[in-house]
């Protein structure tokens, strides 16, 4: 597929051009951290960042999304579907870990058998422009869970930072179409490709944090009732930071909001909240931190593996960095691996 280069100074122009046809989401630095925001001009975006605070999942799975609205009157109820999303989007500067998370969430949300329209419509309309990591963080462990700082999964285009310019590599037809339309790119030279290859090698080595997930799923099969969960849960305060900031976590709740008229909305939910599974009768199959922690780990490293053949974690390290009590998923995995099973 095509490989081109673009000067860094031309990125604002690129974004500006893209906004003519697309809604462009790019990393924006504000209030001390970087997050994906819709940009209207090229100058807001910031591609010199490590990773965004929140993963880009909220663009396809917003924290609050109206499924439909309704009016209740004497004559009954009338429902109005939320309009289909037809706008095209470009997500610029998605890190390889986050792009890879889309592939995983897609398997779950966009499967043939049960397609989630609200997610899929947006996702299908989006072109993902990835940005390779030259400098992975010390908390990143993408290489342990099948990813890589120069990984291409889930992207339509990949940008590699070559210093004063980006190498842009088309990975899908969608990506190819996008670069063809714009006159800002120059053909890539051999030295550009060589440089990218070298950067990729270095970055791969720079991911120093290693977690051993080999055989983890098999081991977890035996560990449902293991006392290790009591150890692991001890300091967890059951907030939603790890799940809300996780690019793959996509559990939700559906509820009614009533103001003048009614809305049925879906909102993010988390397996770390006791109400997640509390039944009307008061019975709760996952009543304490032990079961909730177990659900999170099992879902990521066992249940999803059973159903889709890979771990449900991309190693972005957000949960490690943001946990208010510094509970480290890498340590949890270590602890599980070193636990003796009966």
């Amino acid at each position, binding site marked *: 597929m095509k490989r081109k280069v673009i000067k860094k100074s031309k990125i604002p122009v690129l974004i500006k051009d893209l906004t003519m046809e697309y809604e462009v989401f790019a990393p924006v630095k504000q*209030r*001390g*951290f*970087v997050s994906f925001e819709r940009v209207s001009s090229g100058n807001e975006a910031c591609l*010199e*960042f*490590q990773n965004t*605070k*929140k993963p880009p999942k909220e663009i396809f799975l917003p*924290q*609050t999304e109206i499924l439909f609205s309704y009016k209740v009157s004497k004559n009954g109820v009338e429902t109005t579907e939320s309009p289909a999303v037809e706008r095209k989007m470009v997500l610029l500067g998605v890190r390889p870990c986050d792009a890879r998370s889309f592939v995983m969430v897609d398997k779950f949300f966009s499967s043939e058998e049960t397609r989630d329209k609200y997610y899929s419509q947006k996702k299908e309309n989006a072109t993902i422009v990835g940005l390779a990591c030259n*400098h992975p*963080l*010390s*908390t990143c462990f993408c290489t342990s869970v099948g990813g890589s700082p120069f990984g291409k999964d889930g992207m339509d285009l990949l940008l590699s930072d070559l210093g004063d310019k980006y190498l842009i590599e088309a990975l899908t037809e969608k990506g190819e179409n996008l670069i063809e339309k714009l006159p800002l790119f120059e053909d890539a030279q051999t030295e550009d490709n060589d440089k990218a290859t070298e950067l990729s090698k270095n970055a791969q080595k720079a991911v120093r944090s290693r977690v051993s997930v080999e055989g983890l799923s098999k081991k977890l099969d035996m560990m449902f009732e293991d006392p290790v969960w009591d150890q692991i849960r*001890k*300091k967890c*305060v*059951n*907030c*939603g*930071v790890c799940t*809300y*900031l996780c690019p793959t976590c996509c559990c939700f*709740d559906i*509820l009614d*909001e009533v103001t003048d008229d009614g809305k049925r*909305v879906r*909102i*993010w939910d*988390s397996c770390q*909240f006791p*109400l997640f599974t509390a039944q009307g009768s008061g019975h709760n199959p996952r009543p304490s931190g032990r079961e909730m922690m177990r659900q999170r780990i099992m879902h990521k490293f066992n249940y999803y593996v059973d159903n889709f053949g890979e771990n449900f974690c991309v190693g972005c390290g957000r949960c*490690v*960095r*943001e946990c*208010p*009590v*510094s*509970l*480290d998923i*890498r*340590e949890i995995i270590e602890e599980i691996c070193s636990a003796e099973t009966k």
Partner: protein
Amino acid sequence: MNSVENSIRDVARKLLSEKKVDLIIGYEQGKVPLRTTPCFVNKIEDVEKLVWNACCDANLAKYSVGRKEKVGVVAKGCDARSITVCIIEKQIAKEKVFIIGVPCSGIIDRKKIDMKLEGREILEATVDDEKITLRGEDFKSVLPKKDFICDSCSTCQHRNPPIYDVLLGEKAPESTGVYEFSQVSGLEEKSTKERWEHFSEELGKCIRCYACRNVCPLCYCKVCFVDQTLPAWFGKTNDLSDTMIYHLVRAYHLAGRCVDCGACSRACPMGIDLRELLKKIEKTMKERFNYEAGVSLEKNPPLGEFKMEDSQEFIK
């Protein structure tokens, strides 16, 4: 290793070996620089894990609430005050907790450091009384500690636990000449509209992860008001109105109870300074009822009592 850290280990060892407590709750080193993490020690050989430094940020009172066994808790001034409030409110039985008081000269605010470093990653850090030394891939930086401690610490009036079972090390000098409500006063001077805009923007960042609530030792309700369903008082979406109400009511529920440990502000992944609201509540309690939470086991919390002569300038 510092002497307080040694003393903590000695006390922990003694308490465990004399079976005065079943469990010690303290801090251990985290995997990430400038981080510690709560540590639960019930075996004497694990006592060596315990650390004490300016990164011991968690309020460990959180882990003492509702325990059946007797615990020894490493407590800074604010942590000890939280425990005191919990004792008053009968969430911790006094005889079930042994407060290992440690004087504290301020906890490092990682958010301030992150702002300063503008995204560069810290790979190694050392902290002493005066300075923070940071090393990254291509930089080394020495920062004066006093400029990078939490806001709650720089205005702290109780660096030494008011109530404790043992106090380790030398008392930290209490800060003088600091007006602890200057941030609040600054906001009060603004117009109502400006304040509304300020709080809309700040609280609008909230993602309803409830980290602020869940790290707070005083948010011990079995079911939080936002989670109640019969009736469901307020919404759970990240709609601005619901989000603001969540934070306002949480602050309100902490009236006469919040000790300004700053744990909520530190926990917030979105960088919301929740203390702006809580400090106002504290100010109200002090000005209206001359009450400070967690400094005495004798005084009743102000919202649990009343006086005939309470001020009522706002009532027609």
